């Protein structure tokens, strides 16, 4: 591997990026996910984290252009030069430009956008070209990589970690427990009629009910839920959490406690977390949230705080204006503080103490009132 002359690198670990325009070759969300995936390649092996901006100046600006495009390094039409990028720094530095005379694709038929973007973003982070033909940072484009099994070469990892070091100590490879924790005196009884939950979320088709240091893991295919310690899956997560929700399109569950939140994929806590809840747009007056639920139809997340709620736009990654609002105003019948919430089969389930409200967001009304532990087939 090599770095740019003078070894320019970012002096901060949280970077912003902005997709300034799009190629007509692909749907916008395909470009979004290719760029997101390309950033994740580097995020996973460094302390770096990235958040997206939709306007204004970002550290890394990504754009598509043809021929002369304002940086005195014109593109050359179809073939040959596919893209170029600039070393870390202000202004054009850190930016990545893609030649729109290429045919950008999501597979390997044309020029795969994810592969080229991952390479160019390596430059945006400070890597120069590598002589290792297996490395992502080798200058020539190779289209025969099996995208599904794409991995950075050790040369790439050594290169980027020579600039930024490894990711923060991620928890030991979390065990994948199979044995439930036998209920004991200090563990909550799942059929206790007074049972309430700290947080509830879906996770890859299962439902997780969190309580103190434990959680029940309910698969819809199995009658009996598993009862497990949170620490067996996520040693770095806190117990007694406040809220949790899954953004299915990102295969990510967000866990909240106090004024911090974590992101987990399966049983891996994502690097760069915890982050402060105020980075989501909450004012300083909000010190914790009670519950959260992701509406996959609208791609919005609702955060519940006391008797109010906030709405977060998962695409724009920012809070919608005009909030908070009274929860009961927009969710008629949900007029108590919400402890936990999740979405299943198109219904929203709101938990308050030992009661659970099944809410139909289309009919905008509560359709059933249940016991909180109705999912455990007591």
């Amino acid at each position, binding site marked *: 591997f090599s770095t*740019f*002359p003078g070894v320019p690198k970012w002096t901060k670990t949280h970077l912003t990026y902005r997709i300034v325009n799009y190629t007509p070759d692909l749907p916008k969300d395909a470009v979004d996910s290719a760029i997101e995936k390309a950033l994740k390649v580097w995020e996973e092996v460094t302390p770096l984290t990235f958040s997206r901006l939709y306007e204004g100046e970002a550290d890394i600006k990504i754009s598509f252009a043809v021929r002369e495009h304002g940086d005195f*390094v014109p*593109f050359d039409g179809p*073939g*040959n*030069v*596919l*893209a*170029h*990028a600039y070393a870390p720094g202000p202004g054009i530095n850190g930016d990545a430009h893609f*030649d729109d005379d*290429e045919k950008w694709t999501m597979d390997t038929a044309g*020029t795969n956008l994810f592969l*080229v973007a991952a*390479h*160019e973003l390596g*430059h945006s982070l400070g890597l*120069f*070209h590598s*002589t290792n*033909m297996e490395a992502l940072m080798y*200058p*020539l*484009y190779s289209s025969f990589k099996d995208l599904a099994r794409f991995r950075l070469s050790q040369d790439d990892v050594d290169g980027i970690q020579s600039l930024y070091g490894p990711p923060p100590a991620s928890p030991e490879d979390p065990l994948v427990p199979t044995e439930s924790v036998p209920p004991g005196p200090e563990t909550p009884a799942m059929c206790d009629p007074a049972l309430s939950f700290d947080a509830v979320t879906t996770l890859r088709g299962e439902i997780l009910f969190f309580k103190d240091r434990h959680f029940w893991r309910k698969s819809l295919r199995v009658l009996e839920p598993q009862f497990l310690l949170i620490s067996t899956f996520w040693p770095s997560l806190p117990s007694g959490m406040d809220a949790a929700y899954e953004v299915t399109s990102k295969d990510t569950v967000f866990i909240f406690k106090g004024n911090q939140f974590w992101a987990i994929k399966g049983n891996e806590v994502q690097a760069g977390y915890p982050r402060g809840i105020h980075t989501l747009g909450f004012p300083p007056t909000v010190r914790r949230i009670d519950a959260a639920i992701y509406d996959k139809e609208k791609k919005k997340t609702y955060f519940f705080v006391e008797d109010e709620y906030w709405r977060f736009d998962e695409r724009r990654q920012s809070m919608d204006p005009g909030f908070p609002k009274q929860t009961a105003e927009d969710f008629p019948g949900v007029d108590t503080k919400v402890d936990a919430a999740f979405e299943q089969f198109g219904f929203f389930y709101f938990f308050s103490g030992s009661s659970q409200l099944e809410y139909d967001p289309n009919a905008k009304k509560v359709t059933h009132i249940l016991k909180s532990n109705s999912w455990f087939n007591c």
Partner: protein
Amino acid sequence: YPLDGAARSQDSSMDLAQKYLENYYNLAKDAKQFVRERDSGPVVRKIREMQKFLGLKVTGKLDSKTLEVMHKPRCGVPDVGH
């Protein structure tokens, strides 16, 4: 003037090679065309550098393999520091 295509295509390969070495290997723009150079001129040296960097057989000559690589799609960032 070159009478047959071979000479003309040879010219275009040389132009391509000249441009490639200028763009990615810091060849000075005023470097003479290598056809009139001995083995040790700046352009031959740059061809060696390129062949070494990209893992080709280092001959210093514009052989077919080297020309083929120069036609391949690639990143526009230079291979050696400006």
